[in-house]
């Protein structure tokens, strides 16, 4: 069966050998052709040598998630074949270097013990040799086409004695594999050329070298293999200005748009990339003048949150960006910002946890923690983005909420968002608005009270350095001036005042910023979720709707204050409810039950460190609809 413009592509190889760049090359080549692209990177907490891979989904319709299967597997090493061959769909292809074909399983040093055992059993059970070709034979038997491409030979043929060194050769070979992929699906090599020019911008020699190698590989496929691959890609016309953007970039761009002028950070995966990107773009244009963000690499995450808070007190829009272990260290600082009503933004990229966990893997395991982090009780706003567009606009909102309600805001993201890339209509600053709340930037007079009791609990704010605006802060309970008090009545008033702000926020924030509803809430089944599963759910929904399944998806974006009334109303009416989350216990389902009293009928969780795929959602939802699903379903896809 021939398919046009719909492809699941995967490249795998050793960390540090250029797998990402190759994937980026392929993705951009597709994107330049007007196709929609979604890419997701998987890698070890390691600098060189461990297995990494990159999945790219390409389509002529928007795509937002990875697939459980692969159409074309590009293997930069034997390990990739061992680990991913079984994901390749019948009718799909495996590209590989024939010189690796006889690599025995035992020589693939970096393989995980469990994986090695499983592959061993698999091959043994089938009487196949425990080598890469054993795997390939098996694949072929399952209807997969094999494409051996002798990269070295082609390179030598092209360069003769001047063939590049091993490390560089690997990188070029990866680019050649991309070219071979293009050849397979009949995609115009001109677009690959454009991608090369874009990626190696300005580096003429590199472009030329890569291009020639790519051409050779492209031709090689044409010459040596039948043109019978059932999937083709063709450029289409895009009637919009589109970017190919990664999650951490989208967030960083949102921060810059919001006017974030100071970011502190301590390196940590997968949050670091955002800060590095910001630092690389520390100087930029503002209307009529130059703008800048001061990015500070600090000594630890305690310094990160406290320094950002200090900057916020001085009037800067300030943020810090981190992941689980770092956030764990920020908890005390969060409480201080809470009691002192300081608008500070914490961007939290969740990752595989607990503890050091799986530093470069995906999870949504920190929801409950961020809601309750810090001893005692103080208001905070927590919002979770579900895709790259939301990363951008929510990053702006985070600062608005922080300043309007004078409290710490946690912008909840995760590894999957951070390291996925997507083609997307260019972000529109016109849709962004900056709300600095009750901020007095000039003299306010003798009797200024930073924490004056007001109707809304929000007191007009000054920043350090404002004439006539002197205030005091303390982590202790305080009076309206900000001086320490242990008076039991003042205490009650101050607690009420702070709590009030969250009530106001719950009332003022429009529903559209709290919840997204896709489909008809009166459907057979309501899928409830938050954060990054959105993409896979939406992709699955399309397929389900195409089959006329009655399913609705409610995405919750505001997690504190939780729109409990709205959720209750939606869920009460539902016939069946399922919550989908990337964690062990179904934290969001618990939260919803706590605040609405409504329990889920089903829970779909995944906690193996990999994001949920479209197919997993599709399958498990279908099981629920068919009535064959258990209450709790654990998804397991991913190498």
């Amino acid at each position: 069966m021939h398919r046009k413009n719909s492809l699941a592509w995967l490249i795998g190889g050793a960390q540090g050998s250029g797998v990402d760049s190759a994937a980026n090359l392929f993705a951009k080549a597709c994107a330049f052709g007007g196709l929609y692209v979604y890419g997701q990177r998987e890698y070890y907490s390691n600098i060189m040598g461990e297995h990494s891979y990159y999945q790219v989904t390409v389509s002529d319709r928007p795509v937002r998630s990875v697939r459980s299967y692969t159409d074309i597997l590009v293997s930069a090493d034997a390990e990739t074949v061992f680990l991913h061959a079984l994901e390749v769909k019948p009718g799909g292809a495996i590209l590989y270097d024939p010189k690796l074909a006889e690599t025995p399983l035992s020589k693939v040093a970096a393989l995980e013990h469990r994986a090695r055992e499983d592959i061993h059993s698999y091959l043994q059970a089938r009487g196949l040799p425990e080598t890469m070709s054993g795997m390939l034979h098996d694949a072929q038997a399952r209807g997969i086409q094999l494409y051996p491409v002798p990269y070295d030979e082609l390179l030598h043929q092209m360069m003769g004695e001047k063939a590049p060194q091993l490390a560089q050769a690997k990188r070029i070979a990866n680019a050649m594999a991309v070219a071979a992929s293009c050849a397979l699906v009949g995609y115009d090599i001109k677009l690959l050329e454009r991608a090369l020019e874009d990626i190696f911008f300005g580096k003429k020699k590199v472009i030329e070298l890569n291009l020639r190698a790519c051409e050779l590989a492209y031709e090689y496929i044409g010459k040596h293999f039948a043109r019978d691959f059932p999937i083709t890609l063709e450029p289409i016309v895009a009637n919009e200005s589109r970017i190919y953007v990664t999650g951490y970039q989208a967030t960083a761009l949102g921060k810059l748009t919001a006017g974030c002028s100071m970011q502190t950070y301590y390196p940590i995966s997968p949050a670091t990339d955002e800060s590095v990107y910001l630092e690389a773009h520390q100087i930029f244009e503002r209307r009529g003048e130059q703008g800048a963000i001061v990015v500070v690499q600090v000594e630890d995450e305690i310094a990160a949150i406290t320094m950002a808070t200090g900057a916020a007190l001085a009037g800067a829009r300030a943020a810090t960006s981190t992941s689980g272990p770092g956030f764990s260290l920020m908890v005390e600082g969060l409480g201080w910002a809470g009691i002192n009503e300081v608008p500070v933004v914490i961007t939290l990229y969740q990752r595989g946890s607990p503890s050091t966990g799986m530093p470069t893997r995906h999870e949504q395991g920190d929801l409950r923690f961020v809601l309750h982090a810090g001893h005692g009780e103080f208001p905070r706003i927590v919002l979770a983005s579900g895709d790259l567009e939301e990363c951008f606009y929510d990053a702006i909102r985070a600062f608005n909420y922080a300043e309007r309600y004078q409290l710490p805001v946690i912008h909840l993201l995760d590894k999957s968002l951070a390291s996925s890339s997507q083609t997307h209509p260019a972000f529109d600053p016109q849709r962004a608005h900056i709300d600095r709340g009750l901020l007095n930037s000039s003299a306010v007079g003798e009797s200024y009270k930073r924490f004056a009791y007001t109707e809304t609990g929000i007191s007009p704010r000054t920043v350090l350095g404002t004439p006539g605006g002197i205030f005091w802060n303390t982590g202790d309970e305080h009076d309206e001036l900000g001086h320490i008090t242990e008076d039991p009545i003042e205490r009650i008033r101050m607690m009420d005042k702070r709590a009030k702000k969250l009530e106001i926020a719950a009332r003022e924030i429009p529903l559209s910023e709290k919840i997204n509803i896709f489909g008809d809430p009166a459907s057979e089944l309501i899928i409830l979720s938050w954060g990054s599963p959105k993409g896979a759910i939406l992709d699955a929904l399309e397929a389900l709707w195409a089959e006329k399944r009655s399913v609705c998806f409610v995405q919750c974006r505001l997690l504190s204050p939780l729109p409990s009334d709205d959720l209750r109303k939606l869920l009460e009416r539902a016939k069946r409810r399922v919550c989908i989350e990337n964690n062990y216990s179904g934290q969001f389902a618990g939260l919803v039950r706590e605040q609405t009293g409504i329990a889920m009928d089903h829970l779909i969780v995944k906690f193996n460190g990999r994001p949920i795929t479209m197919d997993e959602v599709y399958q498990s939802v279908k099981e629920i609809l068919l009535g064959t699903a258990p209450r709790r379903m654990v998804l397991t896809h991913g190498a």
Partner: protein
Amino acid sequence: MARKPQDFKTPVHNNWCPGCGDFGILNAVQMALAELDLEPHRVVIFSGIGCSGKTPHYINTYGIHTLHGRVLPYATGAKLANPDLTVIAVGGDGDGLGIGAGHFVNAGRRNLDITYILHNNGVYGLTKGQASPTLKLGVQTKSLPQPNINQGVNPLFLALAAGYTFIARSYAYDTRHLVTIIKQAIAHNGSAFIDVLQPCPTYNDINTREWYSGEDRKDPQTGRAIPRVYKVEEQGYDPLIKPGMSDAEIAAKLTRFIEKALEWGERIPLGILLKNETVPSYEERILERIPFYRETPPARQRISDAQGRPTLDLAKLLEELKVT
């Protein structure tokens, strides 16, 4: 019209113990601010947690009483965001060199233009007198059930190792001396650290006012106490390291500094022990990256127009990501 210390006082009830050295430090800060004639709203006092941590509430400037051990990063954040502020950090020895030691070391590496005043009383005052990191090994103050089991850390020495470019010591009861030191510390362009010997009459009965002033060792002839504390400047000690000095000259300076830093017990040096003008301040380092940092630091960026529209030229940034 010049300011008076009175202008820097608040009506907040002070609840330090009678005779606490913190009073001397508080007064000295207020006098220094008055003598420098600083506008109160341009000054921010940051503090950690402890008896000393209450200081900002008694001073009529912006006052930020932060978390235990975290005074330096908070202060750093504010100063980075708005370099026009005069930023002073104060805190206890437990705060600064116990729980806060990591920040102490790493702040030294920045040489940001702030002043850090350490209330060195040898104890954790507010939690009832446990040994602080500066208390010497084997010393038993009246609040300790057993002699101190840890070595004391030398704040001056540690400050040097960390990279502070202005290192001084003063004494809470010698207000005049302390005022002079604070003024110079504020004037210094870089991180200034002042180790202030601060008697805690409630818990530390070893390093008392009497001990510092040598009441236990009177001159047999005059009957006068021979103070332990003395001023290095009176001995012609010159703390200045300036551009152009040879390596040998600098090495000699450091050796003298270390000699002084190690003195304790019978003779305790006070004064400015190091003033190194050869190290660029953090602000100067930022200017290398962001030339207009001084004019529009983070706190003064015009981030939106009157309609609340972002001023950022996003299109330019999107350029490099464009695919169609």
